[in-house]
């Protein structure tokens, strides 16, 4: 524990806790005064970064099509996206037409794509590649993710700084010494039994009695729980439904991003959110624009991200979204109208600080052999470190140990 966090815990007096409990139980009784107190007790986000992971290795060559590379069409006679259907076309690339809901963001310069990105060395195992991408610290045996290291760059140990939307097993990127929260829904973040049947807050008081003096890791974690329950109150008071007439579409990704938006609008100091979306593992039935799994998931992705920024409104001015996947897929389609495990992929960056409306990266040229990959020309950490540097004003060496970027992509405006 660092010095800077101790006063916070010391200040978390019994009385402060009971205030939180009262809010959780019978908030309407007390109104906005106490709410204001709770809100001011929470931290202030330096910036907000949302990392959307497309699980199962999405096909970047369908999401951002290199229409001017002739190998693309010869290697994919059945599943290639026709050039005439593409959106936001430049001389070489174009967006999958089912990303249409994102077109206004692209045209407003708030969305960009970086192609031929990925791990420096191909890793075709889903689990191992996710680990490697999210650990982002090759050669280290410590299991600490890059987002956890990012959270560790300030003195704040608030558990509210990181939030894994989806609960369950958190992504590797968030694991590490900095505490974070994980839940499907904000309303799941509560102490079981601290409910409307317990208006006096007896449950939390009894827990506090037992855990007040508890040492070491467990005691710290429990104190983080008490603090999170208290400080999340403004988020709970934020309406769960979308604002500004936003529509996320009906998908798990839409629901997860809606939870993310609610957390961000609550303005309690959350800096990093992770959202997983899958299954993009399409060994079969990638399909065409009319049928198949690609068009279906791409529609979900486009609607959910567009709905997210609409819902956020001006809250989105401080929010950057990165969309990535553990690896890409082969250039050539297989016998099952599908694509096997490849290497290079596309990444999207949206929102605050992005120099959008354009495609980045160095195109390696496609080769149409049976086992050909999209060759990686941009280390995925180049994209992430430009986002981190522009939005968080920290040394990227502490977030991506051992990585030095050779040349800037110019993807982000400095804030």
């Amino acid at each position, binding site marked *: 524990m660092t010095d800077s966090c101790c006063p916070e815990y010391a200040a978390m007096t019994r009385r402060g806790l009971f205030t939180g409990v009262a809010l959780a139980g019978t908030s309407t009784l007390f109104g906005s005064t106490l709410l204001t107190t709770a809100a001011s007790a929470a931290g202030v986000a330096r910036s907000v970064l949302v990392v959307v992971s497309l699980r199962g290795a999405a096909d970047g060559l369908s999401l951002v099509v290199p229409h001017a590379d002739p190998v693309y069409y010869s290697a994919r006679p059945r599943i290639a996206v026709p050039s005439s259907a593409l959106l936001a076309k430049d001389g070489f690339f174009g967006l999958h037409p089912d990303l249409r809901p994102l077109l206004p963001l692209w045209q407003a310069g708030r969305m960009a794509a970086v192609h031929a990105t990925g791990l420096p060395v191909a890793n075709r195992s889903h689990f191992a590649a996710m680990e490697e991408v999210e650990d982002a610290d090759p050669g280290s045996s410590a299991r600490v993710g890059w987002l956890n290291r990012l959270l560790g760059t300030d003195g704040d140990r608030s558990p509210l700084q990181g939030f894994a939307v989806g609960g369950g*097993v958190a992504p590797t990127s968030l694991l590490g010494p900095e505490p974070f*929260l994980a839940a499907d829904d904000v309303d799941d973040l509560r102490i079981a039994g601290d409910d409307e049947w317990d208006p006096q807050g007896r*449950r939390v008081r009894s827990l506090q009695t037992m855990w007040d003096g508890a040492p070491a890791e467990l005691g710290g974690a429990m104190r983080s729980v008490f603090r999170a329950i208290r400080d999340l109150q403004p988020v709970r008071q934020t309406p769960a439904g979308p604002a500004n007439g936003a529509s996320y579409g009906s998908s798990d990704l839409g629901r997860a991003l809606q939870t993310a938006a609610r957390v961000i609008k609550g303005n309690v100091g959350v800096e990093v959110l992770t959202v997983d979306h899958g299954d993009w593992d399409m060994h079969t039935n990638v399909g065409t624009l009319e049928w198949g799994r690609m068009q279906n998931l791409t529609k979900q992705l486009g609607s959910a991200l567009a709905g997210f920024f609409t819902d956020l409104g001006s809250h989105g001015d401080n929010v950057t979204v990165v969309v990535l996947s553990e690896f890409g897929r082969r250039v050539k389609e297989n016998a099952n109208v599908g694509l096997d495990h490849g290497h290079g992929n596309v990444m999207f960056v949206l929102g605050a600080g992005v120099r959008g409306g354009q495609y980045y990266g160095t195109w390696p040229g496609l080769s149409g052999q049976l086992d050909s990959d999209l060759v990686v020309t941009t280390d995925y950490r180049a994209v992430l470190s430009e986002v981190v540097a522009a939005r968080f004003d920290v040394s990227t060496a502490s977030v991506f140990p051992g990585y030095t970027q050779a040349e800037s992509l110019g993807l982000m405006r400095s804030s």
Partner: protein
Amino acid sequence: MTVAPQASRARRRVLGGYSRLVVSRFTYGLTPGLAKQVRSRGGATDWFEWQLQPEKIRDRGVADLAGWWPGLAFSGADAWNRHVSEVQPGWTLMFDYQRWLLLRRIKTRRQVHEVMTEFWEHHLNVPANGEPFFVHRKDYGDTIRSHALGRFEDLLQAAITHPAMLMYLDQAVSTAKHPNENLAREMLELHTVGRKNHTEDDVKNTARILTGWRVDQFKTWEPFYDQAAHATGPVRVLGFSDPNASPDGRAVTRRLLTYLAHHPATAERIAHRLAVKFVRDDPPAGLVDRLARVYLDNDTAIRPVLRALVDSPEFRGSKGSKVRTPSEDVVATYRALGVKVKRPTGDKSAAHAILWQTGSLGAFPQAWPRPDGLPLTNQAWSSPARMMASMQVHWAMGGGWWPKEDARYRRPAAWVPRYPMRFDRLVDHLSRTILHQPATPVLLQACCEATEIGKRERITRDHALIRWGMPRLLATILDSPTFYTR
């Protein structure tokens, strides 16, 4: 405030400090029944010795479990055929394997054996949730169980050449021309001598030695030895060297594994890992050195190392130093509440739902995605999300609300040994039953706060506590810091 005055009548006996420590550290949860077993065996030391010979312990309740999930009887080609024909997809077979493990941990009388099986399944980790090695994953676990209290050398030989491991770490597709280094690297770095004790050349030579161990994937799924795939020629790994002239590399593999099992760096690594799991996160070097010496002096036998560990002053002084992992927490909750889990009949059955409960705490059993196995340190399992999830499980089970189907919970009235009973004495009784220690003043105060019942209040059969308040009381005890450690 004071605990209830000494009363001789009907006070539940608990094991003393050292016995309590041995039994709680080496089982999935200390219960009154287990304490009785320990006493009838003449105390913790004799009980531990008895547990080290699992084949002599009757364990009928566990034998019955196998029939609960018929798919577990299938492995290899059968499991694959059932997977592709969608009779039982591989991941659901592995869910059943994970459930079977959790139920074993609840029910087995061979607790030390089961704890050590889990320990080695992590040390030689092959995740349960992966394709295609799931086809041999249960057999892999059974293989580890059969060696879990034997010699590490035998365990290592069996695990490294097992088809599940060969497939998981790409040995099954390695060739003489391009030896795949995946298993070789992890075997040196994780399973034996450990990081910084070997070079890249050691990895390359190990990879050459291991070539030839194949699996007939997507056909018969049987392991076989392929002489054409074996890379011959002189090899050197640390202090081991061999002409490796025969196209059949099985003998040189055996010699290398024997060498590695007896290497002092392996001894230190095994000793350290055992000490982290069973003593503390930062075990003193002196303890690790002594355990490593015992390991080497006893031809890599595991039992003498465990005896030395529980007999050490470092172990004796380590009360409360280890946090329960997610699966340990869930299993201990079932044991502490005495929930009787029955053969599952549907998705909501407790024997099925226990897997989702465990996953909600942050780690499905035996599903760690990397070769290095589940982290053993406290920090890994002390996140706010885990604490909230644990409290959710304790609350739902303390109330008997979830999972409810095919499970029998004790009725609230049955928690009270006699009526009427003073509340402080009841709390003491429940503390002894669930936490296996007398109630502390802090616990009593917390129980009073949670239930709004005074210390000296008389609990009768029609008291509000019995009618509706017992879930709050049980959850409070399950959520005490003591229950989160083992």
